[in-house]
């Protein structure tokens, strides 16, 4: 369901049913988790939780991180990691706000520029990883720092607002249009909250890319076994550079959404978003060893995190306990991915 199995697990004849059950649970864990969160939400807060405004608000607040999670999933599938996406979102949101404030560009011009900026840094991540053979953890950790520094430098450490008023005291047409990208209360066709739509569309597109294209198969192949992939003619270098570039591009796309959401680009925007993005991917069943995971899983993982945040918030659970609960859920998600753990407890060896 949420996982792509390279080979069916070999089951010993007398193996306990519990282990098989756990294995099935691991495959469906994201969906079970989502159902559990929804159940707790409905049980404790009922209509307040389930109404459209609340759900839209909750998902909208997480949408930019969800889009980052899609990019991070691509990288994780190849066996890498991208820690720089939070910083990339930050510089893209700053780029968006500055393009709007200084040059009065239209939103349709701003978004591609931000995507190019993100893709450029993403390409550097990929080049460093594939050509210079720097571990992706180190490469993107360095990029996290470099890009955050650049972000702070170009902005002079001061936030840039996107609600730009003209001489008549009203918002300029460009600023007015930019708000559509995510300022709460501004909806496409008076109905659809843009960040939610953007997140879903990104998920669908990348789900199709991964499942229906040759590139998608190559991504899984590289993560599953790079040597085998190379021997069977997959251009591992190109695939690696491509996933980092796409991840950067998606962070660039999330930038304007984040800037519109808070009606300003903060020099600290996006800090620690990479952790939420990775958590969403992992809860959704992506394996940091590579080769295992789906966009559908990441989407559900993001939903779990955002709805959990909402449910805990509505129940007035303190921030400290929220951190504890979210951390525990990540651990549970990873443990459920590893049915072999059960064997270890029974005294068996982990092969």
């Amino acid at each position: 369901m949420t996982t792509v199995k390279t080979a069916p697990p070999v089951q010993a004849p007398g193996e306990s049913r519990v282990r098989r059950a756990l294995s099935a649970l691991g495959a469906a864990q994201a969906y079970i988790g989502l159902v559990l969160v929804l159940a707790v939400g409905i049980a404790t807060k009922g209509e307040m939780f389930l109404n459209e405004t609340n759900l839209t608000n909750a998902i909208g607040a997480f949408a930019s991180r969800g889009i980052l999670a899609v990019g991070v999933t691509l990288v994780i599938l190849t066996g890498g990691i991208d820690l720089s996406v939070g910083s990339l979102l930050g510089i893209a949101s700053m780029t968006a706000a500055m393009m709007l404030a200084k040059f009065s560009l239209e939103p349709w011009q701003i978004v591609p520029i931000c995507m190019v900026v993100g893709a450029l840094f993403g390409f550097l991540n990929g080049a460093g990883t594939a050509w210079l053979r720097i571990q992706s953890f180190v490469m993107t950790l360095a990029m996290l720092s470099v890009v955050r520094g650049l972000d702070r430098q170009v902005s002079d450490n001061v936030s840039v607002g996107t609600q730009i008023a003209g001489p008549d005291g009203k918002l300029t047409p460009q600023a007015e249009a930019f708000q559509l990208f995510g300022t709460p209360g501004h909806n496409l066709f008076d109905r659809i909250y843009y960040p939610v739509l953007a997140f879903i569309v990104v998920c669908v597109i990348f789900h199709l890319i991964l499942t229906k294209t040759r590139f998608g198969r190559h991504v899984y192949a590289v993560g599953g076994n790079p040597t085998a992939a190379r021997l069977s003619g997959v251009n591992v270098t190109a695939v690696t550079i491509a996933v980092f570039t796409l991840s950067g591009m998606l962070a660039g796309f999330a930038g304007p959404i984040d800037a519109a959401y808070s009606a300003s680009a903060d020099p600290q925007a996006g800090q620690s978003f990479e952790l939420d993005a990775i958590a969403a991917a992992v809860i959704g069943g992506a394996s940091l060893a590579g080769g295992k995971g789906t966009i559908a899983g990441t989407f559900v993982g993001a939903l779990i995190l955002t709805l959990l945040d909402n449910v805990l918030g509505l129940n007035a659970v303190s921030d400290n306990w929220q951190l504890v609960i979210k951390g525990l859920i990540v651990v549970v998600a990873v443990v459920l991915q590893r049915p072999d753990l059960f064997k270890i407890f029974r005294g068996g060896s982990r092969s």
Partner: protein
Amino acid sequence: MKKTITIALCALLAAACASKAPAPSASSGEKKKFVVGYSQSNNAEPYRAQLNLQLQHFLKKYPDIELLPIADAKQSSATQVSQVQNFITQKVDALIVSPTEPAPLTAAVQQACDAKIPVIVLDRTVNTDCYTAFIGGDNVLIGRKAGEEAVRLLPDGGNIVELRGIMSNQPQIDRDKGFREAVAANPKIRIIADREGKWLKEQATPIMQQWLAQHQQIDLVYGHNDPMALGAYLAAQAAGKADKIKFIGIDGLAIPDGGIRAVQLGQLSATFIYPTGAQEAADTVNKILHGQPVEKKQVLGTTQVTKDNAAELYKQFDLSGQN
């Protein structure tokens, strides 16, 4: 190849050393030039960026004082300690420190003091008396003023929600304490919810959305800084409730999307200027270096920003284009 790299590295190192070493003071004999080092706890907060800008601006008024490039401790006490020690090694004529945290910086400030370097502690305290001057705002006072304004805005009582900064930060603790003391004046005022907004606008919006879903009536939002108050405003505006709720912030920065402008636009009912102390620090440094007496503890007041004085205050504190 290896040789080239080595040479390049040596050159780089030499350049780095050269740029760090202050002009040998008083060696030329005629006119003494004073060198001042400043270690800032974190350049990334808009408030501190503004402080840096102002300090550079006000120190320019004294041509015999040279401010070294401001050292950014990036919220790390360890980094800051080594920065202070660097300045001591460089034998600066005076040192300004905005400590990230009091305890870890105490020893470093003590070292500077032992090295006979005058130290000005700006904004946050250290646990020693061995410094020349302390200049800082009073967050309890500002919190109390905000509370008094809340009492004034809600004469018949009402429900308040509070967006707090990072829970472990002293300003957060003080801004909360003062506020609660003041609103206790009216028993019909209740603080019905409070949460950590981490000083960030984008954190505040979803919290406010949840509160709006949860509570029948919210009459006033108290944000520990302006961005959080404005993040809550965005949520309320989207829900069509912004004009029924009052918003109070703190900081009052004179930047285009800061608190003073927000008061002018009617988004915030009030904000309170948390003074940077930059001007006082510049004046104090000058006095110390010229052997004049200075007050050891200078606690700065606050100014309430209202619709009436906002335009004037913005002009007073706006330094863009002046440096």
